[in-house]
C-alpha cells in the first residue's frame, strides 16, 4: 500500500546557519502587485519629504579667530586638519574632530593673504601683505620653543595669492606678476607678466600639474604653463574674476568666481565661450572650490550664503546660510567629499555637510539599500511637479529672497526689452545672443 504524505525538501526553506538570511518565497506575478507607478510615486514623495525633514547641514562652528577669516587650507594627507588665516595675520591649525586649535602661529601684524599646505603635509606656506613668503612646520612648537618659520623669503612686491604644485617642490605666487618659485631658492625661477596689471589669485591645475590659471585686475583670467616662457592665453570678461578653481577630475575644465554674481565654467581650450554659466548668487562670488569627485563645486559669496552647484547645471542644488554668518570669504570642500568648510567675515569657520540630508557614519546594509532606493526614486520622479516643488524648497533670508526676486524681474525686463527691440527692427539686425556669450569681452592671444 502506498501512503501519500506531504513532503517538502528542507533545502528549500532551512537556513544553513543561523546567520543566513531567512528564505522568503516571493511571487513576482505582476497581477499580485498592482499599481506599481502610483505606489512608487507615493514612496518617492515620502522620500522627498523625509529628505527635507532630515536636511540639517550645519554641523559645527569653529570660533577663535579675532578677525575675519580670510583664507582656509585643506591638509593634503589628513582629513581632520584644517588651516585658517585671519585678517589680523594669525594662522591657526585646527583639529576638526575635536573642533579645537592644535597649533597657532602668528604670521605678521597684517593680513594673512593665503595659506597652502605642501603636498607631503609636513609644512605649509603663507603669504601676507608684508611682502614675505614663509614656510612653517605643521606641528605645534614644543614647550619653550618659539614659533618661527622654517624659511622666509622676502619679495619685492606684495603677494596676493599662493598655490603649491601637486607633486613637486614648486609653488606659485601672484602679485604684480605671477612667479614660480623653487622651494630651495630665494628668487623665482620664472615670472610671467602680461601688461601691467596685478593679479588676485593663482591656482595650479591638480591634474595637468604644470598648468596654472590666475585672475588679473583687468577683468581677465590668464592661463600659464610652467614650462613655457610666456603665458598661454587670456580671456577678458565684463567684470572681474575673484578666484578660479580647476576641476580635480577633468583636466581642462575650471570654474571662475566672478563679481557679476555668476560663476563660469570654462574649457581651457575654448575660452571664447564658457561651457556653463552658474547663476543664483545675489552678490559677488568670492571663492569657489571643487568637490574631490569633480562633479560639484561650492561657492562662497558676499551675499552671506554658500551655494553648491552641480558642475553641469546652471543653478545651485543647495544653499546654506545662517543668521549670524556674514560675508563668506573663503570656502573649501573636504577631501573625503563629505563636508564643506566656510570662513566668513564674522571670525567663524563653519562646518557643513555636503549633502544636507545624508546620514553620517556607517550605514547598515539595509539602511544603505533603503537610501539608495530612495535616491533612485527621487531621481526617477524628480520631474513631477509636486515632488519638484518639495525638493526645491529652501528657506532664504528675507533680503536675499527679495534681492533674488528683484534680479529675476530685472532680467525678465531686459529680456523683454531686447525681444521688443528685435520685434520692431529689421530682421537680422538684432541677433539673439546666448547667455554664455554675453559675459566674455575678448580672448587675447
Amino acid at each position, binding site marked *: 500500500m502506498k501512503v501519500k504524505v506531504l513532503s517538502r525538501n528542507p533545502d528549500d526553506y532551512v537556513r544553513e546557519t543561523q546567520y543566513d538570511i531567512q528564505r522568503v518565497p516571493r511571487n513576482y506575478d505582476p497581477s499580485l502587485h498592482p499599481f506599481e507607478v502610483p505606489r512608487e510615486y507615493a514612496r518617492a514623495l515620502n522620500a522627498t519629504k523625509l529628505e527635507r525633514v532630515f536636511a540639517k547641514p550645519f554641523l559645527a562652528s569653529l570660533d577663535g579667530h579675532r578677525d575675519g577669516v580670510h583664507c582656509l587650507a585643506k591638509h593634503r594627507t589628513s582629513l581632520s586638519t584644517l588651516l585658517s588665516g585671519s585678517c589680523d595675520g594669525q594662522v591657526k591649525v585646527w583639529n576638526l574632530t575635536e573642533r579645537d586649535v592644535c597649533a597657532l602661529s602668528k604670521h605678521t601684524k597684517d593680513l594673512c593673504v593665503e595659506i597652502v599646505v605642501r603636498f607631503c603635509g609636513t609644512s605649509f606656506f603663507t603669504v601676507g601683505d608684508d611682502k614675505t613668503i614663509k614656510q612653517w612646520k605643521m606641528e605645534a612648537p614644543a614647550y619653550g620653543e618659539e614659533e618661527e618659520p622654517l624659511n622666509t623669503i622676502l619679495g619685492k612686491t606684495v603677494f596676493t595669492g599662493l598655490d603649491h604644485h601637486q607633486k613637486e617642490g614648486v609653488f606659485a605666487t601672484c602679485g604684480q606678476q605671477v612667479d614660480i618659485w623653487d622651494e630651495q631658492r630665494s628668487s623665482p625661477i620664472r615670472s610671467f607678466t602680461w601688461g601691467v596689471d596685478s593679479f588676485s589669485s593663482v591656482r595650479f591645475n591638480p*591634474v*595637468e600639474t604644470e598648468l596654472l590659471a590666475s585672475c588679473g585686475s583687468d577683468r581677465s583670467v590668464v592661463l600659464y604653463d610652467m614650462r613655457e616662457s610666456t603665458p*598661454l*592665453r587670456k580671456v577678458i570678461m565684463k567684470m572681474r574674476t575673484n578666484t578660479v578653481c580647476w576641476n*580635480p577630475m577633468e583636466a581642462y575644465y575650471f570654474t571662475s568666481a566672478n563679481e557679476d554674481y555668476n560663476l563660469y565654467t570654462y574649457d*581651457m581650450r575654448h575660452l571664447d565661450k564658457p561651457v556653463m554659466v552658474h547663476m543664483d548668487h545675489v552678490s559677488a562670488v568670492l571663492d569657489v572650490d571643487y568637490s574631490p569627485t569633480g562633479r560639484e563645486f561650492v561657492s562662497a559669496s558676499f551675499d552671506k550664503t554658500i551655494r553648491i552647484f552641480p558642475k553641469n547645471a546652471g543653478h545651485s542644488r543647495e544653499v546654506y546660510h545662517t543668521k549670524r554668518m556674514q560675508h563668506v570669504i573663503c570656502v573649501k570642500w573636504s577631501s*573625503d567629499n563629505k563636508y564643506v568648510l566656510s570662513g566668513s567675515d564674522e571670525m567663524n569657520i563653519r562646518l557643513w555637510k555636503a549633502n544636507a540630508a545624508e546620514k553620517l557614519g556607517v550605514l547598515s546594509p539595509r539602511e544603505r539599500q533603503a537610501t539608495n*532606493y530612495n535616491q*533612485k526614486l527621487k531621481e526617477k520622479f524628480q520631474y513631477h511637479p509636486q515632488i519638484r516643488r518639495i525638493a526645491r524648497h529652501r528657506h532664504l533670508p528675507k533680503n536675499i529672497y527679495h534681492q533674488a526676486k528683484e534680479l529675476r524681474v530685472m532680467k525678465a525686463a531686459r529680456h523683454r526689452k531686447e525681444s521688443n527691440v528685435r520685434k520692431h527692427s529689421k530682421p537680422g539686425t538684432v541677433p539673439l545672443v546666448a547667455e554664455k556669450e554675453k559675459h566674455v569681452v575678448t580672448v587675447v592671444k
Partner: protein
Amino acid sequence: MGKLRERKVSSKKANKHPVEAEMKEEEEEEEEEDEVRSDDEDSDEDERKRHKLVEAIRALSGKRKKPLVERSEAAVLMSEFTVAPGSDGDRVQLSELIGTVEQTPSVPSRATKQLKNLEHSNRTVECPLSRQESERIHRDVAFQRTASEVSRWSSTISHNQRVEQQVFPLHQEPLAPRPVERVVSGWKPQTPLEQEVMALLSANKQPITNPVLTPVEEASMKAMSLEEAKIRRAELQKARALQSYYESKTRRERKIKSKKYHRVQNKGKRKEFLKQFDAMVEKDPGAALEELQKMEVARMKERMSLKHQNSGKWARSKAVMAKYDEGARRAMQQQLEVNKDLTQKLVSTLDQEEKEEEEEEEEVAAEGAAGDVHNPWMRGKLSEDPSEREDQQSVEVDVKETENAAEEEEEEEDEEAEEAALLREFERKRRERHVQKAEPEVFETVEKLLVQADHTHNSALEEGLMRIRTVEDLEELPADPEPPLPEAPPPSEPEPPAPPITAPKAGKKRKGIQLKEVLTKETEVIDVGLKPTTEDQEDQDQESGQRGLIKEAFAGDDVISDFLKEKRKQEDEGRPKDLDLTLPGWGEWGGTGLKPSRKKRRRFRVKAPPPPPRKDQQLPSVIISEKRNGALSLHQINSLPFPFESHAQFQSTMRSPLGRTWNTERTVKKVTKPRVITRLGAIIEPMSKEELVKDRKNKCNL
C-alpha cells in the same frame, strides 16, 4: 612652427645688415682718430681747435653725435678680426669675404652656396618683428601645444561622464589582508624557536616575505611566455567549446520527443554493442564474460525494481486514457515489452529480438482484455459493453495491423539506412506520411468508433428523453443532443475529446455496479441510460433554478435599457452644443408669440464642431468617463523633461518599477546602485596621469 622659424631666419638676416653698416662707420672713425693722433704731437690748442672744427662739420652734416670710443691696446691686438684699411681703401665687398670662406675647407658647402645666393639677390630683407608680435606668436604656439596635450584627457573624461557608477578614491588598495611580513618590514626572528623556524624555512627555500608562491612556482610562472600562455588559452577555449557543443547536441537529442527516433537510436546502439560484444567474445572472452555478468546484474536489478511495470504516474495516466486512445495503449504495451526484454535472459541476435517483439505484440494484442484482468490499470476496458468491446477490438486490430505494417516498413528502411543523416530524412518522411496517410486512417477508425458509440449513446439518451420530459426541463435538452452528431468533424476540432469525457463518467458509474455483474445485459443498458441523465437533470435543475431565482428577483427592472439610456445621456452631455445667436426683434417685428424667422435662426446658429470620437464608442457595454480629474493634474507633468526625447521613452522609464516588490534582489541592486561611491574617511586624490595610461591600455586591449 614653420612660420616662426622662417621669421627668425629673416630676422637674423636683417640683423646682419646693420652690423656691417656699423663696422664701416667704425672704420671711418678710426681713420679720423689716426689723424687726430698725428696732430697730437703739435699742440693741445691746435688739437682742441681742430676738434671743435670737426664737431662743427659733423653738426653741419646733420649726423647724430657719436661718443668717442676709447680703445685700449688690446683692440690693436685684435687685428685679425678687424678689417684692416685694405688696398681698395674704404669699402669691403661681401664677395671678398666669401672668397676666403670658399677656400676654408671647414665651412660646409651648403653655407657657401647660401652665401652665393645672397650675393646675387637684390631683395631687401624684412625688418624684424616687433617684440609684442613675436611674443604673441610664442604664446599662440605654446597655447596650441598645451591645448593638444590637455586634449589627451578627453576620452577619459567623456567615459567618466557616461559611466553609471564611479568609485572614489580612484586608486584603491586591495582589501585583502596583507601578509604580516609586508606590514612589519623590519621584523627579525628573535626567540630561539623563531630562529629555528626561519632557518628551516630558508633552508627549504620556502617563501618568507611573500607566502603565496615558492620560488619554484614563481620561476614556473615566469617560464611560461606570453605566446605559450596564449596558445594554451586557445587550446582550453577550444576544448571548452567542443565540450559545450557536445553537451548541447546531446541535450537536443534528448529533447526529441519522437519515440520512434529514440527507438531507432537505441536499436542502433544495441546493434553496435552486440557487434562489439561479438568481437569481444572472439578476442577477449574474459571481458565478454564480465560484460555478460554485468548484463545479468542489470537484469536482476530491473526485476527487483518497479521500472517499466506500468506502475508509475505516467503509466497510470496512460491507463486512464488507454481505453480510448490508441497511442496510449500502444505506449503502455511498449513499456511492458521493455520490461520483458530487460527481465528476460539474454538473447544473442537482434533478429531474434525483433521477432520476439513482434510476437509479443501480437500476443498482447490477442490477449487484449484477458491480459488486462491482471493489470489493474487496464481494468477500465473490462467494464465496457461486450459488443462494444468486440467492435473496438476489431478496430484495434485493424489499427494495429496498419501500424504494424507501417512499422515493418520503417524497420526495413532502418536497416538500410544506418547513417544519422538518413535517419533524419526518414523522420521527415515519416512525419509527412503521418500527415498524409496514417492520420486519415486513424481518424477514420476513430470516427467509426465514435459513430458507433454515438449510436449506443443516442439510444440510451432516447430512452432517457422520455424521463426528461416528465421532469419538464425542455430548455436544456436541445443543447445536449447536438454535440453527438458530428457528421464530419475536422481533425483538429475539440469535438473528439467530448465523448471520452462523458464516457468515463458512465464507466465510473458502472464500476460501482460492477459487483452486480449478475444482472442481464438489458437491464445494464437501461441503467447506463438512466443514471447520467438523472444526474444531468439535477445539475440542470440547479442551474435553471438559480437563474430563475435571479430572474424573479430582478423581474421589475430592465437593467440593459437603463444602462443604454445612461450611456446616451453621457454622450449627449459630452457633445458640444450648438450656439444660437439670434436676437429676437432685430430686423423684424418682435413681441410675445413672435418667433424670429427660420431663415434668421438658421443664419445665426453656430454649429458646434463634431466631438472627437468617444473611447467607448465601440464598446457597447461600457461607459468611459471623459471628464478630466482636476485633482490628478496637480501631480502630472506638463511637458516632456529635458533628457528624454519622446513621450514613449519617458513613459517607459516611468512605468518600470525599481522596488523589490516588483523586482528580484539582483535587479534591485543593479537598478538602485548609486552614481558615486566614496569610502568613509578616505582622501580622494585628484586624477593622476596613471589613469591616462590605464585608459590607453584598456583601449589597446579592446
